[in-house]
């Protein structure tokens, strides 16, 4: 990130665009606020949209052990599949820190683009 961007002051900082963050940044900007929109992850290319590939061409036909092992929380989202699970954070590397009696299971993607 350019240094001058980090040193500026903003009226609002939106963390993650996604479906709602992007709109929030748009509306706030249109309202005249100075907005910083933070993103994380690598850029997704069109070639990575592989849901049109038949499931029998997935090695485990969407029962990949890698998802079970590395995305125990993320895979609770229907969209986390053998096609695209790398878009979701690795739960082992990015564990939630909430106490056991107050689980936090929101899904987290870490890529740019795709909307």
């Amino acid at each position, binding site marked *: 990130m350019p240094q001058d961007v980090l040193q500026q002051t903003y009226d609002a900082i939106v963390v993650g665009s996604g479906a709602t963050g992007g709109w929030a940044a748009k509306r706030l900007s249109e309202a005249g606020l100075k907005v910083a929109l933070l993103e994380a992850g690598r*850029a997704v290319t069109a070639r990575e949209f592989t849901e049109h590939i038949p499931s029998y061409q997935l090695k485990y036909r969407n029962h990949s052990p890698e998802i079970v092992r590395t995305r125990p929380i993320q895979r609770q989202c229907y969209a986390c599949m053998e096609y*695209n699970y790398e878009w979701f954070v690795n739960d082992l590397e990015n564990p939630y820190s909430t106490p056991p009696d107050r689980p936090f299971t929101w899904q987290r993607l870490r890529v740019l683009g795709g909307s």
Partner: protein
Amino acid sequence: MRIFGHEAAHSSPRPSSSSLFNRRDLIRAALFAGAASALGPQFSFAQAVSSGLTAAAKGEDGSTVLTDPNWRAAFLNHHQNETLIVLSDVIIPATDTPGAKEALVNRYLDLLLSVQPAEFQRTFVDALAYIDAESQKQFGKDFRGLGADDLVWLLTPWAFARQPSHWTARNDTRNEAPDLGQQHFELLKTLIATAYYESEIGQKELGWDGEFTHGPYEGCEHPTAAHT
């Protein structure tokens, strides 16, 4: 195509199985062959590996592991694999469409079992062993060595519930001892049927014509900055 166990129960001693074993030539459509090369020169394989892409995003066809001419079982031993092939073939035989054997159901289940928890692996192997033991008891032979009529005769009682459901029997049967044969067979039949209908052959048997409802996805190829 029919799945063994989806017909009305019968009590004849040994039903004819000749109609279950009519074979036809295997139909295989090599969809998406060479998917990796179709990605084009702009797509670097090294980039794919380093950027954490799924196998699908890399353009890999995961089904080729099942058709590899040098295929070896990852979990099942030879006897178990042969038993599974025979069982899958009698449950979903080839008729006017290819059956479970042609769909390589045994290979997919072997792959799947190789990454399952030990408890599930044991349950599966126990189910196969139970069928083999009953075959030995009834015929003095391993299940995989039985003739077509004997296979059907052995499996038929397990394919249909002999006890009334506790729903219809007002819970009277809730505490009755389970029918082990039926339990083991149900597990194996379910897995075999699932593996079959998840395969290309199975999906086509269901009526899929190989076309995609929405057509191939051709995403925007413009550089990201071109839209700003």
